[in-house]
């Protein structure tokens, strides 16, 4: 288990939408928030310092340190969408880092469930299929 990726279990489930609320903090101090599925800006992956899950009162509750200072470590940030033929039904956020064959992925489900994965199969899912 890497020492720079940690979380606790005090997330308040977002009950109003299927989206998590989150805040990204950058090296420059810039903060970007997405509250109840409403983005105020698009997250960028460069120079991301911290990723916080935000509770229903919009207070940061869970910190995910995505320190990228180590050479060659790439930040992973993905929204995995689930859409029936007519509409989006769920969004799962995937946060983590990868350095060569080392990686950790944190799956953040809208139900409030969090899964930590270091499965090679999960990482393979990020391979682009062009």
């Amino acid at each position, binding site marked *: 288990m890497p020492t720079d990726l940690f979380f606790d279990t005090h997330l308040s489930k977002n009950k109003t939408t299927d989206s998590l609320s989150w805040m990204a903090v950058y090296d420059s101090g810039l903060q970007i928030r997405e509250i109840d599925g409403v*983005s105020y800006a698009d997250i960028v992956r460069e120079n991301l310092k911290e990723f916080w899950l935000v509770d229903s009162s919009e207070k940061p509750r869970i910190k995910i340190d995505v320190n990228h200072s180590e050479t060659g470590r790439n930040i992973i940030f*993905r929204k995995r969408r689930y859409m*029936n033929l007519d*509409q989006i039904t769920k969004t799962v956020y995937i946060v983590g880092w990868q350095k060569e064959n080392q990686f950790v992925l944190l799956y953040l489900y809208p139900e409030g469930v969090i899964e930590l994965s270091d499965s090679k199969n999960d990482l393979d*899912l990020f391979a*682009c299929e062009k």
Partner: protein
Amino acid sequence: MAATINTRELNGVAPGVASTIASPTGKLIFQMSDSHAEDASNPILRPVSGSYYSYWKSIYLNAVTTPPTEINNIKFYSSGTMSWTGVTLYVGDETPDVANYVQAVGTLGKTGTEIVTGYSGITAKTTMNTYTSGSPKSVTGSIATPNIGAISKLIVLQLTITGAVDPGDAGSATLTWRYDES
């Protein structure tokens, strides 16, 4: 902002006319004709013997607005529990390019042409129940900013109907896209 994504169906003579499956109430209606209309015209018929086939459906994942960076890792699956008596939903094993779309053909109002026989580029088919959230079908395709339009290649769907089919509305089933957005 997050990309706006929808499902589009191609109908008509190639290259086809793209129609959007409306949100949130749109449906993909299988009929014995090449039509996007969500109506009861040219309904599925019960064969006296052998099998009939619906006209096939060619659909793809479409970006109405561009993603922040990229959309990829596209999957397609069902609940795995579709159980219409006498009716089986198949998907073509291959996913043709949108540019290689083939119009659905058959005997209007009676039966469509079977996809392996009639759809150039599709050599085999699998029941949609095979593909579930835990074992989805991979669909080639991606799109990167600032582009919009077709993201995936074509998913081609078709019903096979036997004499065991019950009369009336067989009910609906849910098919799901899954994709990663960054």
